[in-house]
């Protein structure tokens, strides 16, 4: 069988995806835990003390990966929104709402760790700077998505409303990313860029990338874990649900 002959839509059926997600999430959870432990070890025992910020800079090992994830998850939600709008698959809306709480969590953690970093380095928890404000807007977009989809009883209509929030709100992501270039911000410029050599020690960069991969695996595991609950809630009247081994008792 050639790869192109696989019918990917087959897996988009909730009845197929429920057991698939159940088989996959423990692997991503294990990878995430392992990478998280390695990342923490590098963060505290391998990465050297910063010559300017002392030990305070170690917040970077969660601040930057959490911020990346908060932006990346929103892009994935917008991608699912696009799939949902064009192909009208039910799974797109389910995956979207499975991702949103984790995205909101990372946006919150980005703001929280940023405040705890800003206080000792800038002398303030918060400024209305373009980077910080656009990240706060991202957090509100996640909260808005969750509140809006929860307020609509019909899940298919809730999905459609959510798709609009994802597709419109995704314009905020490049604004966050380029905010430090477009405006004069208190927040420093990008620490890692694709176009120039990183301006930090290799071990610091390595620690950050491993923590980012850990958060990435965690996000996949949580989305797959949560989508199982969402599938069961929405498909409660389907015969395949009644035939699941965990429903026999």
């Amino acid at each position, binding site marked *: 069988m050639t790869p192109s002959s696989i019918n990917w839509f087959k897996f988009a059926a909730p009845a197929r995806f429920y057991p698939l997600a159940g088989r996959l999430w423990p692997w991503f959870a294990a990878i995430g835990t392992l990478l998280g432990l390695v990342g923490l070890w590098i963060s505290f025992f391998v990465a*050297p003390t910063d010559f300017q910020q002392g030990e305070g800079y170690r917040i970077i090992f*969660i601040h930057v990966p959490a911020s990346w994830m908060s932006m990346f998850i929103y892009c994935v939600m917008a991608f699912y929104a696009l799939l949902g709008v064009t192909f009208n698959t039910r799974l797109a809306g389910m995956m979207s709402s499975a991702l949103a709480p984790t995205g909101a969590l990372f946006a919150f953690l980005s703001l929280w760790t940023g405040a*705890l970093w800003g206080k000792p380095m800038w002398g303030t928890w918060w400024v209305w700077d373009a980077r910080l404000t656009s990240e706060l807007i991202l957090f509100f977009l996640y909260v808005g998505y969750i509140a809006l989809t929860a307020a609509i009883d019909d899940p298919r209509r809730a999905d459609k409303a959510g798709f609009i929030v994802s597709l419109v709100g995704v314009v905020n992501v490049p604004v966050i990313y380029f905010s430090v270039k477009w405006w004069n911000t208190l927040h420093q410029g990008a620490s890692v860029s694709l176009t120039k050599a990183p301006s930090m020690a290799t071990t610091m960069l390595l620690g950050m990338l491993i923590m980012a991969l850990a958060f990435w695996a965690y996000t996949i595991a949580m989305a797959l874990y949560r989508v199982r*609950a969402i599938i069961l809630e929405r498909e409660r009247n389907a015969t395949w649900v009644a035939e699941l081994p965990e429903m026999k008792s």
Partner: protein
Amino acid sequence: MNWGSTSDFLAMGGYGLYVWGSFGVTAAALLVEVILVRQRLRNTRRALRREISANRNSQD
């Protein structure tokens, strides 16, 4: 190795509150999310089991 002693490690060169406040809240938040989702899945399954067996009984 960066740290001479455990108290050195906890002090984080005077930034202890900020560094541990960041790592601690992150760890707690991820843990709480896992617990909440596990509960959600468990409650959904329990409610569905009840619903399904009630349907079976009403059909008999």
